[in-house]
């Protein structure tokens, strides 16, 4: 039997060379502040050469829906729900101090004045950097969101197994 001795440091370096640490982020929240944090981590990780997968579910789906899109469900309950829960990455409310939109508008102005990227800009950067984005099929169905109302470039629909397959190899797995 051939046994090759490898220095632990060298082995680790080789491992990192061939298999960079993976990052997965579940985006459940549709709050602007939380989604911003998710995208800052995602774009940062992608810039560090780490493969990133973002899994959008429930309120998080609003981030990757086209602006102003409603539910395409036929039953009146989901229709009404869709009317209240419109999509769009620049439509997200703050988790605190939303104040019917006033607080969020003010926060957006402060961010713009300080040259901080908005959620749509962060989303675009993430796509440029090759962040893998997956929409959860279960909640798409639950909310009556059809695939054609998702943003261009979001073409991966999957469920929990896909997420877990990614997450089990993930060095950083976040739930936001």
């Amino acid at each position: 039997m051939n046994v090759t001795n490898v220095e632990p440091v060298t082995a680790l370096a080789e491992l990192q060379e061939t298999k960079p640490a993976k990052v997965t982020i579940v985006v459940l929240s549709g709050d602007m502040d939380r989604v911003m944090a998710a995208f800052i981590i995602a774009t940062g990780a992608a810039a560090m050469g780490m493969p990133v997968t973002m899994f959008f579910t429930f309120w998080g789906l609003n981030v990757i829906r086209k602006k102003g899109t409603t539910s395409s469900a036929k039953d009146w309950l989901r229709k009404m729900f869709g009317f209240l829960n419109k999509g769009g990455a620049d439509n997200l409310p703050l988790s605190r101090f939303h104040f019917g939109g006033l607080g969020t508008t003010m926060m957006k102005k402060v961010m713009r004045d300080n040259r901080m990227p908005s959620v749509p800009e962060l989303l675009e950067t993430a796509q440029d950097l090759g962040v893998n984005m997956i929409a959860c099929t279960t909640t798409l169905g639950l909310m009556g969101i059809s695939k054609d109302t998702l943003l261009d470039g979001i073409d991966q629909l999957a469920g929990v197994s896909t997420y877990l397959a990614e997450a089990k190899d993930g060095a950083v797995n976040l739930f936001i």
Partner: protein
Amino acid sequence: MIQADVKLDTLGYFCPMPIIMTSKKIKELAVGQILEVASDDEGIKKDMPAWCQTIGHEMVGLEEEDTNPKKVYKAYVKKTK
């Protein structure tokens, strides 16, 4: 004083933009060239060495310049691969 081959201005941008801009810019350099990244975000002092360590480029230096009203940090990254 470190001589840079290419300069990148990220003044006024907050995290994560300086790092993202750096990761894009470094692709334009040849191996062995040095990139100077100017930033007024203090986070760069820790973020740039961390980025270099993870991605495998060499951090060759960091300079601080006192300019009103903010400090300007200049990070020097040598492309190694």
